[in-house]
């Protein structure tokens, strides 16, 4: 800020000068902040078509959203690949899935694109809608067996009969429990609740006996709402969550009213605490600090939770609770690698090699062990089983069993595939808070439905 350069004592400045300096500074600051923003927002030129892209670097470039340990593991995979094939790979961390998406879309406009993009399944349609993606099935080496993937994983990532992107890091939501707190409250930690009703009863026991301050928490993220829909066997959007056609309707079956009724009751009676929108870290903190006895979060958090609670309390994993006794299964989500179309042809062979390498059972086994994301090919699961990995690490077994028990042919288990995903996601998250704090659940759900449908309408029409 130019104005802050002024020294504390500015007695020698004539009033006249000061006045014009002040006015000048104010005008500049005003104009500056305003137009800078306007300029940023004006960047989208929206040039579609079959443009020829240029690569970022000589080496293969991969944009990903894996921070910390998981990012290190990814770097290791890259250097192993280089040792094996001689092809150098730059793994470039983009901070978040949202940033990968933004940068990808911006890159499509600018013409310099990365060779592989790690896209969260929530944003899959938005990337596909650019028409700038080459399906990985065309790129993978001929001897690659696309049937190697678990059925429900492959189903989600197959668009129009082709494997459009390469599934890689996949997880679902499970419920972690504090075994010590359960015992203290007279609950059986070996028989954790599996329905929302059971979660309420367990929460009451935990809170009424002053074992923990609240019963349960989870980040306010659309993913958990999707899980509730999916377990109930209901799709959130019509046309099979957008997998069989353009979605136009946000579905609100009776079970959803039950869900919000329960959620509101939990909140009103202080059995549930809202950690905030997309507040993954805060939710985990509440569990680790023993403020809540149960936590719903990603299977990918298992490793971190074991480390953070070591010596404090025993943590255990149990399946995600469901609204009723119907348990169809979790939504298949997670991220996958997309490859842009229109790069120089000679690069696709190397990209195909790298994709195949990342799906290799040995790589998948290591990836699972170090991150907690579940293995996505049958052969890697077989290998882990032969090492007795799941017996020694029962928390990981819970996650995988939940996945394998899912009714994969039920469209509800496929995550929403929709262009304006971020807008629908934000709507569900914001409206959820509104609903649980209003006296009229029905009109709140109706408002959520209406707003989500407006977003679908304005994107597709």
């Amino acid at each position, binding site marked *: 800020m130019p*104005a*802050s350069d002024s020294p*504390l*004592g*500015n*007695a020698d400045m004539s*009033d*006249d*000068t*000061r*006045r*014009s300096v*002040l*006015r000048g500074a*104010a005008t500049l*600051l*005003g*104009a500056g902040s*305003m*137009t*800078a*923003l*306007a*300029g*940023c*927002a*004006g960047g*989208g030129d*929206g040039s*579609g078509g079959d443009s020829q892209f240029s690569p970022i670097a000589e080496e293969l470039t991969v944009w990903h959203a894996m921070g910390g340990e998981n990012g290190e593991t990814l770097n290791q995979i890259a250097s192993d690949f280089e040792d094996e094939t001689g092809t150098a790979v730059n793994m470039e961390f983009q901070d978040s899935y*949202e940033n990968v998406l*933004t940068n990808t*879309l*911006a890159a*499509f*406009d600018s013409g310099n694109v990365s060779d592989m993009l790690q896209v969260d399944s929530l944003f899959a349609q*938005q990337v596909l*809608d*650019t*028409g*700038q993606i080459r399906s990985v099935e065309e790129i993978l080496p001929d001897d690659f067996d696309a049937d190697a993937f678990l059925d429900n994983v492959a189903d989600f990532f197959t668009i129009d009969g082709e494997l459009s992107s390469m599934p890689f890091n996949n997880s679902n939501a499970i419920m972690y429990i504090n075994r010590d707190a359960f015992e203290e409250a007279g609950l059986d930690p070996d028989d954790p609740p599996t329905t929302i009703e059971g979660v309420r009863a367990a929460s009451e026991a935990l809170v009424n006996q002053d074992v923990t301050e*609240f019963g349960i928490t989870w980040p306010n993220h659309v993913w958990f709402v999707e899980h509730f829909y999916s377990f109930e066997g209901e799709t959130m959007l019509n046309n099979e969550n957008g997998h069989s056609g353009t979605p136009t309707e946000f579905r609100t079956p009776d079970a959803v009213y039950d869900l919000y009724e329960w959620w509101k009751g939990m909140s009103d009676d202080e059995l549930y*605490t*809202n*950690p*905030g*929108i*997309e507040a993954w870290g*805060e939710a985990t*903190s*509440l569990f680790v600090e023993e*403020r809540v006895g149960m936590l719903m979060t990603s299977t990918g958090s298992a490793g971190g939770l074991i480390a953070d609670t070591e010596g404090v309390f025993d943590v255990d994993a149990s399946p995600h609770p469901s609204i009723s006794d119907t348990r169809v299964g979790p939504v298949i989500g997670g991220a996958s690698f997309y490859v842009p179309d229109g790069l120089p042809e000679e690069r696709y062979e190397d990209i195909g090699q790298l994709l195949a390498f990342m799906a290799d059972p040995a790589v998948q086994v290591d990836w699972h062990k170090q991150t907690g994301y579940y293995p996505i090919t049958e052969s890697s699961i077989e290998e882990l089983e032969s090492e007795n990995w799941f017996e020694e690490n029962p928390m990981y077994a819970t996650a995988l069993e939940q996945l394998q028990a899912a009714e994969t042919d039920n469209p509800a288990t496929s995550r929403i595939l929709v262009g304006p995903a*971020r*807008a629908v996601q*934000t709507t569900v*998250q*914001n409206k959820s*808070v509104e609903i*649980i*704090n209003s006296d009229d659940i029905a009109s709140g759900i109706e408002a959520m439905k209406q707003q989500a449908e407006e977003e679908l309408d304005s994107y597709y029409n």
Partner: protein
Amino acid sequence: MSKREVFDSRLGAALLLLPTIVVSFLFLYYPAALAVRTSFFDSTFGRSDEFIGIENYVSLATDPGYRFSLAITVLFGLLVVAGVMVFSLYVTFLIHEVDYGESVYLISAIWPYALPPAVAALVFTFIIHPTLGVLTGPIESLGFAVDWFNTGWQAFVVITVAAIWKQIGYNVIFMVAAMNNIPEALTETAELDGVSGLRRLISIYIPIMSPTLFFLVIINTIYAFFSTFAFVDLMTGGGPSSSTNILIFDLYQEGFSFFNFGMASTKSVLLFIIVGILMYIQFQLTEEYSHYGA
């Protein structure tokens, strides 16, 4: 301002100004003009722009969500500017009056200003986090339930307080400078006449400081409308129930989360106009009331 001829040739002056002009044009005026153009288009990534005339403006004018955003932004702006000015003035006056340890107080008052907005937002979140916050316990022991993740008006208050807290340091710097410039003789005369401390602040210091205060009102207004983005983004995400969805955040979300560049540009053009009008009013008002020396 007196007319000074620093340069002999106009060409020389123009040459020296050129870098500034080029940068301003490239990064300010040209993008701003583009934003105005984009506001008449339906524009997003990966599709070609479609000219839709004033449709974006019409839909905003009839959008109750946007009107609500506008209303809370104005309220937020008023509260932040008033809060910052009043509190900073009082703090400055106390620092001015204190006999010992003036610099210690000054540094403590300025400290929050030294934090980048994003860091300040995170620090403030953990001060007043509904379950993890250090201040939450003491406040709740007074019988008040802190629940700003769920309760709209509480979130609005938290954001407002955070925004005021962050900006006090900046104001204190300028106010201390202005107050220290007031001739000691005036203070002594007032004291001899038995004028109380607060009266002295209101009737003597404030009028003398008015040019500085005017400048700060402008800066604080800009701050409230634009620089408070980090607090909203990191602390509330515009919620709950849109209660902290101020225009700058709304615009950002439209553009960079939902990629509706046409609509986002429309919002930024409207914000430009709104703040422009506010600035004009402020200049008119202060023209009348500011004292620029004898």
